[in-house]
Each structure stands twice: as C-alpha cells, then as structure tokens.
C-alpha cells in the first residue's frame, strides 16, 4: 500500500545508520559488501536488514496480496464524508495449509473506516439482563481464563459464481485463524445472567456502531471475546483490540472493535439484520446462523494453467459451521463420480481443513469439483441440488443478493481444457448480483 512507503523509507535511513554501529555482524557486513558491488533495486527486500530481523518479511519473489473488492459494502461509499477503506478478499489460490496469514485474511468493511483504538482506554461493558453490569479493561480481560481455537471466518458474500474467473472471486471472502480470548460464558458468569435472558446484542466501537443479535445458547456454547489472532494482538482491520468470534456463524456475527455486550430477551433485528428475515422472495426468508458443509478446490482453479500432462495434486479447503469435516470427495468428471480425498493436517471443528487428491492429467478435458461431508452427516450439494432443495430457479440463485439468499454452499466446478487452461466450470448466466457489485 502506497501510504506505508514513507514510513519504510524513514526506517531504511535509520537502519542504514544503525548498520554502522553493528558492522562486526558478518551478515550485515556481507550485505554491505554486496550492496557496494551492485546497488540493489530500491524496492528489493534486503533479507539481512535490521528491519527484517525485527519484523520478518517474505521473499521479494513472493508478491501475493489481498484482492480489493469493487466497492465497499455500503450503497454509497464514495459520497460519504467519512474515512473509506475497501473490503478485500483472501488470495486462496496462492495459499497452502489451513491457516490464513493475517495480512492476507479477508476483511469486509461496513460503512466506516477502521478506528484507531488505544487499548489502554478501551473497555468492554456487559449489561442488560444481568445481576451486575460490569466494565472490563483490556488488562482485566487478559487476567481471565482463556482458550485458543482455530476457526474459519466467512462472509455471507461467498458464492460460486459463473462470472468469477478465480477462486478468490468465488470464495475469497473467508479465512482461518487461531483466535485467543476469553470465553463469553466466563464474562456472562461474572455478570450473572437473569431469568428470561435469551439473546445477546454485541456492539462495535467504530463509526458504524455495528450491532448483531446472537442467541444466548450460542454465546454460552463457544463464543470468544478474542484479543489474539495467530499469536499476536488482533490487528486493526480485524477488530483491534477486541472482537467477538462466533465459530461457524456467518461473518457478520463476529463483531469487531467490541465495546458492549447487552443481554436481552429478544433479537433486535436492527440494521444489518433485516435482510434475511424479510425479503421480497419468501423462499429465501430463513434463519441465518451457522454455515453448512462447504469446500472448494483452490488448485488447479480458475485462471491457472497446467503446463503439461502428468502428475498433479488437486487441493483445496473444506469447512462446515456444523462441526468437523468428516470426508471430502473430489470429482474430475463434473460430478458423475467422486473419489475420497486425503485430509492433510489437523481436522478441527468449524475450521478450514486442507485436502488433496493425487491426479494424473492425461490431456483430456476435465471438470474438477469437490464436496464436503461434515460430522453431522450433511453433504455439500451441487448447484442443481441446492436449487431444487430451496425451490429456486437458477436465475434466483445468481440474481438474488447473497445477504438475502443465505449460505451459498453449492459445489464450484473448474474446467480443465485440453490446452491445460483452467476456467470457471459453471454455465454462464445473464445476471449475477453481488453484495459488493
């Protein structure tokens, strides 16, 4: 990002001065020698710089970034006199394993920029139907029992999409992190629940004061008030210093910059909550809690190129809000037959699970797609199965905004052409509407 450049230049000047003080370091001496022999390009990362030592950097040959959304989630972002920041997607095709690097984890911004919160001044209030309304400082929260839980976080905007050219375009609105924090049940016990409490309302501290109603049963089950993400403090674009993590639920429940929990008797159905409970199409009016079983192939995927015939692995991610992934199956013939894939690494409930299937490409056309079976015995549908189950036309699947359609967990096919080119395998449609479109 361009605004980081001045800071980086300043730092490089400082580190050049510092290098003089530590010239006895062999690594730095070597770096200095090579620098004098051949001046490095100004943008090159110096693997031996003090900057690299203090805060590790990736190779300059690795340049993957998040992909910026067309526009923010708001209808009129470009006309508001307030800070702007676009939403961004995770570059899934470039990633391996199950954890999403925090720097590449998707962010969806709702209506306002990212607040600059001093953690020493930030507090969390627990109020409403409790015996003791309490206010916690960050320091007090860090003194309470905590848990770490690896879990996926997905935006309702993810959807297989005939118009998308890459897997980032279809499924880039998700990531998987290790979240560390206080179980919300611990805080609710500190405050003491009153009879009749059935919901909590979580409120953010940003300009849009995002609020979301969460069933109390879920709050007591596995919801976290998280201050850590992948071993470090939650970053500003993910909710620094404190966010709600609601495992398996739609992304919008995971309130960032958390400042208040109010215990109440009924859901609020406030802003950001309406759309699922009233839509012009009654067929899509439904509860919107945890995600169903899902999976997607990230490699080979749209816009990639197989260089030659021969051995490959088909790999991707599987996940379910219903619990752990039990099995992933991969089809190379457009869903006529499926083979069981290997699960590579930890298989954790409500977490991304990496799978792969060894595959030999013989140069013929192939249609690659995967499906997930979760521990509840729920199977990821094809597009046709999904449409039939909900009695929706294909036009409705892609002509309804995702926030009214619900979780779009049908299978995404990738077509491998005889020349090795990989493209979107979904049949074209006349219209695709998108939450960021």
């Amino acid at each position, binding site marked *: 990002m361009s605004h980081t450049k001045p800071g980086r230049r300043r730092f490089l000047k400082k580190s050049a001065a510092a290098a003089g003080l530590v010239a006895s370091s062999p690594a730095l001496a070597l770096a200095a020698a090579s620098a004098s022999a051949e001046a490095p390009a100004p943008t090159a990362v110096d693997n031996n710089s003090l900057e690299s030592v203090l805060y590790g950097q990736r190779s300059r040959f690795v340049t993957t970034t998040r992909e910026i959304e067309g526009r923010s989630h708001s209808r009129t972002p470009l006309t508001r006199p307030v800070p702007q920041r676009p939403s961004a997607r995770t570059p899934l095709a470039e990633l391996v394993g199950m954890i999403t690097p925090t720097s590449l984890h998707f962010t969806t911004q709702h209506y306002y920029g990212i607040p600059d919160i001093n953690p020493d001044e930030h507090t969390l209030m627990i109020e409403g139907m409790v015996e003791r309304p309490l206010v916690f400082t960050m320091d*007090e929260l860090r003194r309470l029992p905590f848990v770490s839980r690896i879990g996926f976080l997905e935006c309702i905007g993810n959807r297989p999409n005939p118009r998308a050219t890459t897997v980032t375009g279809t499924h880039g609105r998700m990531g998987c992190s290790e979240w560390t924090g206080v179980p919300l049940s611990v805080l*609710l*016990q500190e405050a003491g629940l009153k009879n009749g409490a059935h919901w909590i*309302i979580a409120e953010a501290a940003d300009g849009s004061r995002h609020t979301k109603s969460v069933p109390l049963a879920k709050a007591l089950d596995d919801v976290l008030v998280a201050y850590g993400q992948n071993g470090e403090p939650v970053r500003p674009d993910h909710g620094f210093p404190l966010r709600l993590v609601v495992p398996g639920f739609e992304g919008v429940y995971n309130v960032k910059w958390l400042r208040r929990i109010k215990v109440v008797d009924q859901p609020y159905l406030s802003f950001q909550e*309406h*759309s699922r409970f009233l839509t012009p*199409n009654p067929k899509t009016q439904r509860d919107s809690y945890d995600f169903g079983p899902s999976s997607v192939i990230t490699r080979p995927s749209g816009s990639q190129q197989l260089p030659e015939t021969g051995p490959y692995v088909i790999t991707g991610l599987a996940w379910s809000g219903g619990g752990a992934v039990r099995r992933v199956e991969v089809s190379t013939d457009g869903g006529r037959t499926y083979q069981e894939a290997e699960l590579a690494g930890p298989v954790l409930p409500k977490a991304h699970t990496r799978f792969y299937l060894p595959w030999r490409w013989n140069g013929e056309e192939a249609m690659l797609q995967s499906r997930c079976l979760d521990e509840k*015995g729920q199977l990821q549908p094809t597009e046709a199965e999904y449409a039939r189950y909900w009695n929706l036309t294909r036009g409705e699947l892609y*002509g309804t905004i995702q926030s009214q359609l619900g979780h779009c967990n049908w299978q995404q096919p990738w077509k491998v052409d005889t020349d090795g080119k990989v493209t979107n395998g979904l049949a074209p449609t006349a219209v695709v509407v998108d939450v960021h479109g």
Partner: protein
Amino acid sequence: MGRTFAFAAVMLAGASVLAQESQPPFGLGRPATAAELRDSLVGPDGEDLPDGSGTATDGKEVFSARGCTTCHGPTGTEGPSVSLVGGQVSTFSNYWPISHWPFAPSIWDYIHRVMPYDRPGLLTVDETYAVTAFLLYRNGIIGEDDVMDAGTLPTVQMPHRDDYKMPAPWTPDTRRGFEIVPAQ
C-alpha cells in the same frame, strides 16, 4: 449425543448462574456507572428509551441544523447518500428503506448511536426523537404533529412489521437447512 450432553451441561451451568445469591467467580471488572447504563442500546420494544420528546416539525429543523442534510439532502431524499423516504426492498440490493424497518424504536436507536458516521452520538435525546418523528412523518407512518417519546414511539405500527419472520431458537444440534442431507 455428546454434543447434546455438553450443551445440557452448559445450560445447567447457566442455570446455576441464575441463582439470586450468585457470586462472580473472579470478581474482575468494575460496576458500570449509572451514566453508562443510561446510554444503552434500545431494542424493538423500546423499553430502554430515555425521557424526552420531539415532533416532525422540530425534526425538520434539527435535520438541517445538525447537518443530516449533508448526506441525505434537505428533505431526506436528495442524497448524495440513500434516500430516507419511500423505497422498496429488492432481491438485488442491500438497500433497506426506513419504512421497511420492523420496529420504530430501532430507528431511534440507530440515529442516536450511529449518526452521523463521522460523529456518532452527536444528537441529543430530544433531537433524536425529533428526527425520528420527521422521518416517520415523511414516510407517511405518523402525523406531522404526533409527539414521539418513550411512550408513543413503541406503539408506532411499522407497515412491514408482519412480513418479518422472527429467528428461531438456536441449539448446537439443529440442522440449519443450508445443507442437503444425502439421500440414503
């Protein structure tokens, strides 16, 4: 089954929390102040609406005096931001017209806590009642002289209230319907 028992255990733990004489296990956190609790979220029943009042006539003045017009135009329709008057819900937009909000107190809550985006919480209690009344009046839901306060606002019948499906209770073992169970 394991999940069911685990959930039951959580609920029992929750039930023990309900005892009148329950003690906080750790005793961390300070009591919230009266001022903090006064400035609360307001739910659909409007139970936590504070004392104060306003009418559409007052609200028209507040709307321009407090700069709502910068984004919403002189009468709430001219933009550049979304129109606050009329409008329809559609299957292809996130736009949610005010007249389609299910509960009038939620509109008060949103204006009071969130607006304007760059200075949330700017409006006083009375000003919020006034702007809420102005917008309800402009949408043909209340009369120009109707006084909105903690007593009247919750009784305002929103035109689309009955179109809403209230969310069902959640338990860990409920199937959600976003999944297709394989045919056996």
